[in-house]
């Protein structure tokens, strides 16, 4: 019911708000939802998700611009490469837990940052500029802002539905069990490392899909998207909206993107404001906005 209403609002939104802004929100919302799949449902804090987001943006930009691929194949390649990177990262990082896991993913993503800085195809500081949006399936001209918007919306809804399905599947239940008490899940006979790895790859792929889409929307893949500050930003979006809630990351992403575009026109330094929100969230507001709301609602039987 609520979902249908929200979808209706999303469909009507570009007639009221600036489509590029909305597309940015949607890309980051998908990114945050993908991240939340790990932290919120499997209890894994990855501090390296920018590597998948930004790395996939480079892949989409390169395949579409230099190799002349159609946008759908560019996005597919971006998602696949991000998933592959997720597999490699996951195989290394899942051997440790908690903060170790966070630091290892952070260090690995910094490696990707340096690669993006040095590899010839990424063009260093310039990034890949002027990426053509192309024609989706040879039918829809993505140069039209509204067509692009509805494509991004469709991608977001598909990604969100996949996450929804995952969370509400037996697989998702096992992930929650691992989050709550991993030794117990192990003693019940689950090979928890496998579950965590699959969740990691899925999350990385979806983060890559978000990054590839962002590259098409802004026709640009740049270093900003691979920095560790970007990994931090997605943590903030999830934390602010509510970790472990399905809609939390969407709300968080919307708020952070809105705040940043508002602050850009003021003289306030953006990182300081973002940092303050971070600190406040961690100190007094750990459930996030949607989390607080859900906690205040009367309990329903499941």
């Amino acid at each position, binding site marked *: 019911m609520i979902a249908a209403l929200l979808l209706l609002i999303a469909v009507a939104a570009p007639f009221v708000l600036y489509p590029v802004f909305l597309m940015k929100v949607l890309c980051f919302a998908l990114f945050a939802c993908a991240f939340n799949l790990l932290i919120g449902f499997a209890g894994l*804090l990855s*501090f390296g998700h920018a590597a998948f987001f930004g790395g996939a943006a480079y892949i989409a930009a390169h395949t579409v611009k230099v190799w002349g691929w159609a946008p759908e194949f560019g996005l597919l390649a971006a998602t696949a490469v991000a998933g592959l990177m997720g597999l490699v990262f996951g195989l*290394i*990082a899942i*051997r*440790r837990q*908690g*903060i*170790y896991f*966070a*630091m*290892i993913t*952070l*260090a*690995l993503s*910094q*490696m990707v940052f*340096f*690669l993006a*800085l*040095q590899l010839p195809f990424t063009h260093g500081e310039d990034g890949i500029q002027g990426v053509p949006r192309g024609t989706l399936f040879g039918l829809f001209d993505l140069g039209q802002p509204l067509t692009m918007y509805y494509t991004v919306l469709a991608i977001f809804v598909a990604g969100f539905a996949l996450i929804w399905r995952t969370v509400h599947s037996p697989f998702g239940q096992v992930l929650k069990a691992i989050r709550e008490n991993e030794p117990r899940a192990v003693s019940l006979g689950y090979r928890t490392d496998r579950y965590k790895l699959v969740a990691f790859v899925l999350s990385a792929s979806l983060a890559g899909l978000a990054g590839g889409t962002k590259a098409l929307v802004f026709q640009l893949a740049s270093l900003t998207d691979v920095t*560790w*500050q970007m990994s*931090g930003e997605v*943590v903030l979006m999830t*934390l602010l909206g509510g970790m472990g809630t399905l809609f939390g990351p969407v709300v968080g992403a919307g708020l952070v993107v809105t705040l940043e575009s508002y602050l850009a026109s003021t003289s306030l*330094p*953006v*990182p*300081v404001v*973002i*940092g*303050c*929100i*971070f*600190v406040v*969230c*961690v*100190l007094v507001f*750990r459930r996030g906005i949607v989390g607080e709301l859900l906690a205040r609602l009367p309990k329903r039987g499941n």
Partner: protein
Amino acid sequence: MVSLLGIPPQVLFGQLLLGLINGSFYALLSLGLAVIFGMLNVINFAHGALYMVGAFVAWLLLTYAGVGYWGALIVAPLVVGLLGILLEKSMLSRLYKLDHLYGLLLTFGLALILEGAFRHQYGVSGQPYPIPDALKGGQNLGFMFLPNYRAWVVVASLTICFGTWFAIERTKLGAYLRAATENPTLVQAFGINVPVMVSLTYGFGVALAGLAGVLAAPIYQVSPLMGTNLIIIVFAVVVIGGMGSILGAIVTGLGLGLLEGLTKVFYPEASNIVVFVVMAIVLLIKPAGLFGRER
């Protein structure tokens, strides 16, 4: 001209010296992180920012108060240490009962605030900081030229590293500290004020970062971004060395600095990522790190 493996010795030793200096900074910073982690179980993400603050305090003291390098070497770590104690008392101490991840997230926010504020105030271009008069010039060692200041940095940080190691592993105070990391309630019952000890430990750990900042100021420029990328390398150092280990932090820091220097000679393109590659390999073979214990 003798050459080693086709590389002129000046180049080789020059890079090794640079590597040793970077390694000293890695060691000092990862030592502070290890001390804080051992006691508080917090990964101090603000460590790089506090290193930057140390360098800036030195620069501000010189620019506005006329206090020179030697004064800054004492004052800046104290300022950073006090700032650390303040942060620990007001914020970090509220999070100990929760998942350790919240400590990481809080300090991440603090790092954003500190770096953003200095960047807003002083811009991204670095401020030069002069080498103190007593340490100008250098020695000609025959095979290479050794600037005095750089030799001082290596000696000073090694002394501090081994002093800290000695204090923690071989003195009574260190024994209390180690005992408190194992069982705080029991140590408290012996009449030791554990919360104060925790605050002081955090203060000491970040004071080490501040000190590293002052040492770094004359070599690198004093810039708001100086801690940003360094901190991630230091995290990798800590992971490779094994989180619990003080000795691991020192040895790995120096070793990786040297390895980075060598990579710069033989394959410069890889020098930025060699630390992370080593981390990946070490983790695959020994998940607890080289000196770490599996917890």
